């Protein structure tokens, strides 16, 4: 399959008052055409920062290292004006809260058509017609009426669809969705996930889905990447990670997620709290919360390494991963 994006040894650092914080480091992955990659992690794991950096949207005190190759172009080496040639056109991003991403003072059609006029040289009238067609394609009922509405007149699900429509107008090769369904009701969430599936299957769009919801991941992702404390700790095909997790953190996440078809008496959550990036534990960042940690984990950081079948993990423990074995 064609590779559309290759991320090499990427890192994101924020400069604070008198120190630096590495929000994310040593990220490596490639994204194939039509593939859905889920990036899973809890708040502060660095999962969003990498992609904000790729889009040139880091906060002012942030800087990205490494390379992000789209064909021959390193996106990280471009300045904001050069990036504008790709941003929105080849690679687009949507966010959790569509209300804060839409301009409240402009009608939906104005915001959508602007994209076409700017990136694809449409005239105003064609741009509006195409925008309305796109609204219809993402499942917005009465698209003409909605196109003439202001964002606050639409429901949350509808606004998220407008965002997706806007992202798709230029037929980007890559769509990055940061917690796109977290604020939505389950029924609307199911509609959105359907929409994502048809995007990747029918249009060959590659999707990066940043989420903390393993239920969402199970439904749409081909591969997944689990992050903890700013690093990727496990990576592989979705089914492998769900049915045979090799990193204790992945296992812990699975045991923390309630399953609607199985009513367990108790959940088996990971104990303790996620670490602060400013003060990561020595050795493996996960060791204070890990039921499998041993001496080595306290002093040495496990590198992300191949463990066969296209899988990678960053963990020294080699024994069986089941809570039953530990007690």
């Amino acid at each position: 399959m064609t590779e559309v994006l290759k991320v090499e040894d990427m890192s994101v650092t924020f400069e604070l008052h008198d120190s630096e914080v590495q929000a994310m480091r040593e990220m490596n992955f490639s994204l194939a055409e039509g593939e859905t990659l889920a990036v899973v992690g809890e708040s502060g794991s660095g999962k969003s920062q990498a992609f904000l950096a790729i889009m040139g949207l880091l906060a002012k005190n942030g800087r990205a290292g490494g390379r992000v190759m789209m064909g021959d172009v390193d996106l990280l080496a471009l300045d904001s004006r050069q990036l504008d040639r790709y941003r929105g056109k080849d690679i687009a991003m949507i966010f959790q809260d569509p209300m804060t991403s839409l301009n409240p003072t402009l009608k939906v059609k104005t915001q959508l058509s602007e994209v076409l006029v700017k990136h694809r040289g449409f005239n105003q009238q064609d741009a509006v017609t195409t925008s309305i067609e796109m609204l219809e394609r993402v499942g917005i009922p009465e698209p003409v009426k909605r196109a003439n509405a202001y964002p606050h007149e639409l429901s949350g699900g509808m606004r998220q669809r407008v965002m997706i429509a806007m992202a798709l107008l230029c037929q980007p090769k890559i769509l990055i969705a940061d917690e796109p369904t977290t604020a939505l009701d389950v029924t609307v969430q199911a509609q959105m996930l359907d929409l994502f599936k048809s995007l990747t299957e029918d249009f060959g769009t590659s999707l990066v889905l940043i989420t903390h919801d393993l239920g969402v991941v199970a439904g749409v992702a081909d591969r997944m990447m689990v992050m903890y404390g700013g690093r990727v700790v496990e990576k592989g095909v979705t089914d492998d990670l769900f049915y045979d997790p090799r990193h204790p953190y992945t296992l812990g996440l699975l045991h923390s997620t309630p399953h609607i078809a199985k009513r367990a008496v108790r959940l088996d959550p990971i104990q303790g709290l996620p670490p602060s990036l400013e003060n990561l534990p020595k050795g493996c960042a996960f060791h204070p919360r890990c039921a499998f940690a041993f001496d080595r984990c306290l002093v040495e950081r496990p590198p992300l390494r191949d463990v066969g079948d296209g899988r990678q993990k960053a963990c020294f423990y080699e024994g069986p991963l089941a809570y039953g074995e530990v007690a």
Partner: protein
Amino acid sequence: MAHTTTLLEIKDLKKTFSIATGLFARPLTLTALEDINFTIRQGETLGIVGESGCGKSTLGRCILQLLSPDEGQVLWLGQDLTKLPAEEMRQRRQDLQIIFQDPLASLNPRMTVGEIIADPLRTLRPELNKTERRARVLKTMESVGLLPEMINRYPHEFSGGQAQRIGIARALITEPKLIVCDEPVSALDVSIQAQILNLLSELKDEFGLTLIFISHNLSVVRHVSDRILVLYLGRIVELASGDEIYDDPKHPYTRALLTAVPIPDPRLARARNIDALKGEIPSPINPPSGCTFRTRCRFAKPYCAEQRPPLERLENDRLVACHRWREIEVPQEAVLGV
């Protein structure tokens, strides 16, 4: 577990809000809740689910008298809370507490943890002196898993999960009988969410609490609840035990909600045939005639538009409001895809 005593009985509850539309225009009426009838038994956890705008939080607040219902009764051990004078209601609040969704926003940033947790005692138990209050605060902090040295710290120093523990401690300190949990874990990370869910169930057993658990997350509700109440546009569409709701949902809306819940199991998720509900919840200002769900229901018949389905009582005190629940048979795999 025998749920015998009826702790709370809600009778014909109705709540409307008036929506201003302009300076001289007549305000519109939004009916947030109507014909709400159900009971809560001592020691049970009742889950309340539905999409945003269905009235689930309004119902929780009407029960606690944080909002005054327009009509109907909220009977607490037989006593109607809606008729209670303010001062008596204040005393009653020892028994009825609430935990909110956004833990940090619900804590006063200028008070220390100790002051926040002790606050309900100042008004509800003024006879306690400072030492007694502090002892109680420390005891409650221990039961929710907060360390004693945290007592003098401020809310911003805490993560979401710990802030929610503070909120739970504040609710527990008056030794309540019932706690309304309004989306208590929605803002939390997965691993922390599981910790708080386990904490709530431990506290429930330890203190014999009755919980009303409001959430849009059906997997979470399934996990914690004995019985589940499903609301749609301010009306009860179904009420049954957790197992009945999940194994044999009667109302098409309940079924649709269940098929939409993501399952953290890739093979199941792929095999599933999601019968996704079309469209969005209609505006409660101008709800559809007859059965309010008919506009999104694939089983709807013309007569569903004419008559509102009554809330029928089935065996085991199940409730369902659908004209066609007897006729529509949907196999189990259509619900969970397994």
